């Protein structure tokens, strides 16, 4: 029943286009950005500097630091926002950086996003002041984090708490969006791929910029260089 409705719909479009349904995949005259746009090699440090500049311009905070400095910075930020509860991705890099230990040192509670009771986990994330994720990529050109949702990598962690902290190694930096999109196309799409460029914002009231409407108002990017 539904299939035939679909067939009729598509048939009508072919008819309106004045030709039969194409037998083969149509040849695209152009596809995406030109290949020169993505050079084979790039300078990570340069991409990192661009990311920091762009992220900062959007009122975010971005710092390049060592693992020791990370621990100190994290404690400061959690103290600054007086966080009592923190949620984090269940992620290898965050484990490696001993995030739990650092957070607990501030007296705050921390839980990781593990399979379990959905309702309970969402309610907890909603109560949290801080959400900590890693980032699959960070893009220099625009100051953008790319987060692929997946097991342990909940969408809500970077969304529900008013403070979002992303902790990731400098190796995840790329200069352009092109690298991420070609990666995604090649490795298959995650159920939800989010590009995050600064805090949640709106200009809906008199065009006046206001930060932190539904998503986080405070966004930190801690880029770790060992």
């Amino acid at each position, binding site marked *: 029943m539904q299939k035939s409705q679909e067939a009729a719909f598509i048939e009508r479009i072919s008819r309106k286009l004045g030709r039969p349904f194409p037998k083969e995949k*149509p040849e695209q005259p152009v596809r995406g950005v030109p290949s020169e746009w993505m050079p084979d090699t790039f300078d990570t440090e340069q991409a990192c500097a661009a990311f920091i500049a762009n992220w900062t311009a959007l009122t975010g905070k971005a710092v390049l630091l060592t693992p020791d400095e990370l621990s100190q910075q994290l404690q400061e930020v959690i103290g600054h926002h007086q966080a009592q509860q923190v949620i984090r991705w269940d992620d290898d890099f965050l484990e490696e950086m001993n995030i739990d230990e650092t957070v607990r040192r501030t007296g705050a509670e921390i839980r990781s996003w593990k399979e379990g009771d959905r309702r309970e986990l*969402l309610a907890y994330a909603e109560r949290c002041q801080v959400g900590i994720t890693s980032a699959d990529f960070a893009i220099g050109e625009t100051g953008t984090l790319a987060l692929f949702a997946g097991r342990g990598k909940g969408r809500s962690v970077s969304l529900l708490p008013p403070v979002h902290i992303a902790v990731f190694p400098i190796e995840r930096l790329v200069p352009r969006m092109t690298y991420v999109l070609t990666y995604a196309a090649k490795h298959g799409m995650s159920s939800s791929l989010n590009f995050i*460029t600064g*805090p*949640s914002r709106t200009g809906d009231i008199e065009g*006046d910029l206001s930060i932190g409407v539904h998503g986080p108002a405070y966004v930190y990017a801690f880029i770790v260089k060992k």
Partner: protein
Amino acid sequence: MSAERSTIKERAKEALKDDYLRGAVKSTTDRLRTNKLASQEALGNWEWWRERGRQIRAHVVANLDYYLSQLAENVRQNGGHIYFCETGHEAVKQVIEIAKRVKARSVVKSKSMVSEELHLNHALEQEGIEAVETDLGEYIIQLAKEGPSHIIAPSIHKNRHQVAELFAETDGKEFIPSDTQTLTAFARAKLREKFMTGEIGVTGCNFAIAETGSVCLFTNEGNGRMVTSLPKVHIAIMGMERILPTVEDLEVMMNLLPRAGTGQKLTSYVSIITGPRKSGEVDGPEEFHLLVVDNGRSEILEDEDFRQVLHCIRCGACLNVCPVYRQIGGHAYGWVYPGPIGAVITPLLNERNDQYQDLPYASSLCAACYEACPVKIPLHDLLVKLRARNVEKGRTSRWEKLSFRMYRHAFRSPKRYRVAIRLASRLQKPFLRHGFIQAQLPILNGWTGARDLRGFSGESFRDRWKTLQNVLEKDKG
């Protein structure tokens, strides 16, 4: 949407009386336009990007049947459901069927222009299902029981005091401070409850990607992420033309859409949703449904000129530069889509409805819309073509028909032309002041109402040519 039987002229007249509206629309569109110019400058080679955007959109629309069927295959492969709805009515029926099956009491919505075409909220409420708009601007106009007046800034016509009053009323309070931060915080708290409890999230779709079966949303507030992460069911609704072949093509649109819309390099969030949540994931919807809506679009495909209007990516840039939109705002256009794009697409999507066929006259044909368009749609040409179509279909006033009949008659023979000009220059005399027609003549008041029209010269060029020719020949000799 306002379905009152008024003309664009009458609605524009009303709008012009509202000084606040004109001030608000002007300042916001000024800012959006300035930011756009700065950010396209910063990107560099803007014309090249525009052309790339045009090529991609033109290719998709010319092969829409193929890409829709590819999209359908891939949506199903990802475990999602896809529905093809010929009319708005069918789309609404589909949403309600899903809502009833999952026993939804509340639907949380992220901005979707196509759902405005369908009057979806109204239909849901008829069924006893709450429909909450969660984009701040949409939330405001929903409380005010109005429609959007700009494609990307729907509450552009409301000031902060009006918003504060609306919010206070909703909350049963006497007063809420009208600073933006307080108002935003109010909406955040109110809507957070809705996000946490809504059973269905409804979104629009900036682009669907045929090759991966994904839908892509460009948002700034995070409400789009909320409604695709928290409710158990996600329903995305798209106009059937909003497709890109591949995820790589999305990068071109990522450079064009936010820059053209608000002047941002990228919106705060770009979310690519591919099917429902996968096993092992805790959040994200259990069900993903994609509704592909025709609602008059396929009629537009037949004519290759009008087909270009389906290239539109709904950035709103043409509104911000339009001298007409900037004076009368969005509601005067009378339907979902305002501005130059509205003046073209509204009469096309409502082809059988005479009520909307006067919109192509709400334009000075200055072509600023074409210049602003990130995918190079020649809106000014299409406006002229729509006017021509009105003439063919006899949708013109008796005066206009009569004047053009006389015009054709006079211009067909040199003799008649000469007589007509002489006659006109004599007939105009009672109305002439210092060489200009200043009087409010019934047929000419489109011109003379706001400015003076230059009168005919007493002597025609042909008459003067005789003496001029003599002078020239003397000079040569």
